[in-house]
């Protein structure tokens, strides 16, 4: 209704850049999600400490076809220590 007030600033919801995440019906990435959630709890909800777990979760999504594969730098992950961890995670899975 507020958007109908003439000449007022309207809130325009912008589309997400990559569109919508497909739903993870089978819970394929549940483990990575739980790891990320526990990391957040340990670090008092500070996301900068949990970037690796976030990266793991997104890597799991990409591996299971739940997300388009993109370079990490395009998603804002610039650390170069990541690839080693990713391989370790994949091998343990």
């Amino acid at each position, binding site marked *: 209704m507020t958007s109908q007030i003439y000449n007022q600033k309207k809130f*325009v919801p912008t589309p*997400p*850049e990559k569109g919508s*995440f497909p739903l993870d019906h089978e819970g394929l990435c549940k483990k990575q999600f739980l790891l990320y*959630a526990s990391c957040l709890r340990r670090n008092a909800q500070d996301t900068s400490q949990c970037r690796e777990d976030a990266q793991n979760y997104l890597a799991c999504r990409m591996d299971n076809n739940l997300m388009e594969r993109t370079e990490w730098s395009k998603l804002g992950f610039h650390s170069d220590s990541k690839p080693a961890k990713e391989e370790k995670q994949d091998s343990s899975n």
Partner: protein
Amino acid sequence: MLRTLNALRGQCQQLLRSSIPRQKPNQIWRMKSTDSPEEAARKLRLKSTLYYITAGGVLIVGLSYAAVPLYSIFCQAYSYGGTTSQGHDSEKVEHMHKVKDRILKIRFNADIGSSMRWNFKPQQYEIKVAPGETALAFYTARNPTDKPVIGISTYNVIPFEAGAYFNKIQCFCFEEQQLNPHEEVDMPVFFYIDPEITGDPALEHCDTITLSYTFFEAREGLKLNFPNYAKPHAAA
């Protein structure tokens, strides 16, 4: 008696004719050859002044009508006042720098429409994020009914001015999502706050941003205010 009255009348008429100026009102506009030079100059000045004033008035009215589209074009071109052009590009994500000295708290809120039967809640109440850094957050939705339910969501950012700096890379909104009976899913939101938020004076004292998602049930004939890029889920 009549003679005196007539004489009086004649005298009055003579007096009137001599005192009232001969010119009728509309003769101010007509410059006659019988006018003296001062009269002509005065009339000319009067006319020009009036023309100038009328033209000025018309110009002001025209400018105020033209100002509306001109202003919006200016704002779009120079990103003034938060009216950035649609979306953002991935180049920005690659090159943006984290702003370390300003940590923002992002609170999450989850709502459902009145007839929506899902249980929908955020997985974390709030997270601390630095502008310029991408962050991941989760919501959980559960379908407790025995039938598959299709939902579609929209979002809102409070405070209003912060919405221009809140950029989502990927989320679960604006597309229909189906949940099978008794199914529970985690829905991630991957976003970042534009580092230009530090330059916005209106948000100088803002350190909490609330992201609120609302899920509605997608039904035939349900008309919601969706932007035109929202598309229905392809039949899976």
